[in-house]
């Protein structure tokens, strides 16, 4: 167990370093934007005096490394500065949005992960059968269609032609849980359709890759039924690649939802990010990017730890 802990600690450290590098890139990217930020914000009202005042207000008169350290120090304490557009604290705006995005991702994950793993196992069990082919074609079709298109199709069938679900997913903080799930359902299904193919195909491939192993042959020669051979003998050994692809898709559910949030007018981080970019509200853009990056790194870290723990050699050393 000590080995596992030190491995996990090492991965954590690496994740932290990655995040630091990403924060430099995010900060640097904004710095590199052409033109003067103060002038851009002021637009037509830019006179030399107002620009100077604005630069001072934004702290642009100081050197970039100093501002970076200040910004990072604040971010570490949860203070991402003040929005340029409405002068409110960025953290205050981002917090509820991020919770909404996480909620949507959680609902989508609750559907997509079990469905795709079960489908993957079944496809491996009945490989080359009609079921396998249909599952493959269907999931490939759904991954190949743009998500906004899928979203509109769902709206057309499930809320316009049959008024079962609301086409606009306006969630509020004080909504009861079930209602919240209900209004989130359409975007969640859209996201599920997008991520399911990847996870299902990886599950299928990871299991089939193991079917030639001697221990699989042994299980068959012991007279174990097919489903047991797949679910009990192949699946536990195929977990490492499956965990990785699941984590990758979870990250996508959080960071790649921009289009779906816009289609369903869902108040998540994606929308906030798009709005802030159009308004040139850089503190908010930076904060959103940093949160996305952290999510991505954290999920990959969890995947690494999960893969390590799925290896019995590491879980139960000699």
């Amino acid at each position: 167990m000590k080995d596992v802990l030190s491995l996990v600690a090492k991965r954590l450290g690496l994740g932290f370093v990655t995040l630091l590098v990403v924060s430099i890139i995010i900060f640097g990217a904004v710095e590199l934007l052409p033109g003067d930020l103060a002038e851009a914000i002021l637009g037509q009202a830019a006179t030399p005096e107002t620009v100077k005042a604005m630069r001072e207000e934004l702290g642009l008169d100081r050197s970039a490394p100093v501002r970076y350290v200040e910004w990072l120090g604040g971010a570490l304490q949860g203070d991402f500065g003040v929005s340029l557009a409405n002068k409110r604290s960025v953290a205050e705006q981002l917090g509820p949005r991020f919770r909404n995005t996480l909620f949507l991702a959680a609902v989508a994950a609750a559907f997509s992960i079990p469905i795709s793993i079960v489908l993957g196992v079944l496809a491996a069990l009945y490989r080359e059968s009609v079921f396998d082919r249909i599952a493959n074609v269907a999931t490939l079709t759904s991954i190949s269609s743009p998500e906004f298109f899928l979203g509109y199709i769902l709206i057309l069938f499930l809320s316009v032609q049959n008024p079962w679900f609301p086409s606009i997913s306006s969630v509020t903080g004080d909504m009861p849980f079930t209602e919240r799930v209900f209004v989130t359902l359409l975007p969640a299904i859209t996201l599920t359709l997008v991520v399911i193919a990847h996870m299902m195909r990886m599950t299928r491939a990871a299991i089939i890759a193991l079917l030639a192993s001697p221990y699989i042959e042994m299980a068959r020669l012991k007279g174990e039924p097919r489903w047991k051979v797949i679910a009990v003998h192949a699946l536990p050994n195929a977990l490492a690649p499956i965990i990785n692809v699941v984590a990758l898709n979870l990250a996508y559910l959080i960071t790649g939802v921009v289009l779906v949030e816009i289609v369903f007018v869902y108040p998540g981080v994606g929308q906030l990010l798009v709005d802030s970019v159009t308004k040139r509200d850089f503190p908010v853009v930076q904060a959103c990017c940093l949160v996305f990056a952290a999510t991505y790194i954290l999920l990959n870290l969890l995947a690494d730890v999960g893969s390590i723990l799925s290896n019995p050699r590491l879980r139960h050393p000699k």
Partner: protein
Amino acid sequence: MTDQKSSLLKIRGLRIEGRADEKWFEIVHGVDLDLRRGEVMGLIGESGAGKSTIGLAAMGFTRDGCRISAGSIEFDGMELTSSPEEDLRMLRGARIAYVAQSAAASFNPAHKLIDQHTAAPVQHKIRTRRESEEDAMELYRRLRLPHPEEIGFRYPHQVSGGQLQRAMTAMAMSCRPDLIIFDEPTTALDVTTQIEVLAAIRDIVDQFDTAALYITHDLAVVAQMADRIKVLLKGDEVEEADTRSMLASPKEDYTKSLWAVRSFQRQQKPPAGAGETPVISVSGVSAAYGPVKVLDDVSFDIHRGRTVAVVGESGSGKSTAARCITGLLPPTGGDIRHNGQVLPASFKERSKDQLRQAQMIYQMADTALNPKKRIGEIIGRPVAFYRGLRGADLKKRVDELLDQIELEPSQFFHRVPSELSGGQKQRIGIARALAAEPEFIICDEVTSALDQLVAEGILKLLDRLQEDLNLAYMFITHDLATVRAIADEVVVMKEGKVVEAGPKDEMFRPPHHEYTDLLLSSVPEMDPDWLDGLLERRGVDNIGEAARK
């Protein structure tokens, strides 16, 4: 003892086809086999003889890409070739069980031994989980596994290879089957471990009066285990007889050639002169993988034109010593000299010429050759790297090397490794080592993955090359027959130390060091009474102990 017993397995005209390149090829050409209850039959032959395929077919099972095309397999009155898969499944594990070659690969790494042991009896509703667990402990005890109450609750990687192989035999016994297929169950084990497993298998098969098909390529092993022997060659039966008469008077030429295969033996060369500087001199070398010490003060010399065989069980440090010499693993102490000059510890600090002088040939030619490259490129690369040859000169030199290893250049230059047989691949490995024009070659278990006849060809080739080029060999092996064939000097290693060293003739003559004696006496002999005699001499109840001493 088998005369009055009834027939259990009857195979008639069995033909099996395998699929390659969208076509079906016959790999077993009409084999008959009869096995009575409680009888052990040995199936013997080289790889490609169809032994395993026939063994699996006896369970009504074919590997993916194979099919039974004709013939009948009758197990206890039931025709397996026409039975539905579900009926066969009820048979497998319950009445016919299988013991695979590599227990380490055939136990599922994700589950404890006991979970895998109890799966079949519970699945076939022969025992409850609880009964089966208790039975497992009883079987572990009978197979003389250490800590029988507790060992089942470990994961496969927490148990040694020999113990795993016995645990797998116990697992096969879990439903008290009528027939067990043993598919090379001791091939992957060290000689000392092999004895424990052989004795355990024989005892338990006797105790429960189980019939068995014992598949192996090792005649000496089958002589200990089988009542009758069937010899197979390329999917055909060569001959069948009871063990004693088969050993005493084989009828067919092929069988005789198998019997004679260990006959190659080279005269030991006179020891090198006292003043001669050895090509490679290892003195006081210690090495470690992290905190684990694997070599402890190892010293030996290798002289020009001589072969030093380094023997020992797996984990004794033989290959680590080779890694130290090549600089892949810098030693923690001691030094390695080449012609009297100290070599830098790491290969990274050695000059091209120093690197050129020590080459390696590996055990698994399959994995040691790049499958995407053509033979001409594989051999040409070291020629270009060390000698700087290009174009026509390079081609000429590669052709010369192919000639040296007795492969026709025009036929092999443009092929890829997958188009070659195991023996041919190993020859390419040799040519690649020769391409650097070294003085010294390390041969790491180069013949252990090969059939005996093919292995003999490789040994003869290495011997001839040594004569022609005055090469020095370090020959790492666990096979004492190989040592007898090719060595001038022998170094016996155990747990990272040299326990005995000297000229070959002395090493094979008593008195030996205790451990050398254990190794030598553990090599199976072609005498059906050998195992009994050995167990009696060592005392049956403590074979395990004797092997661990």
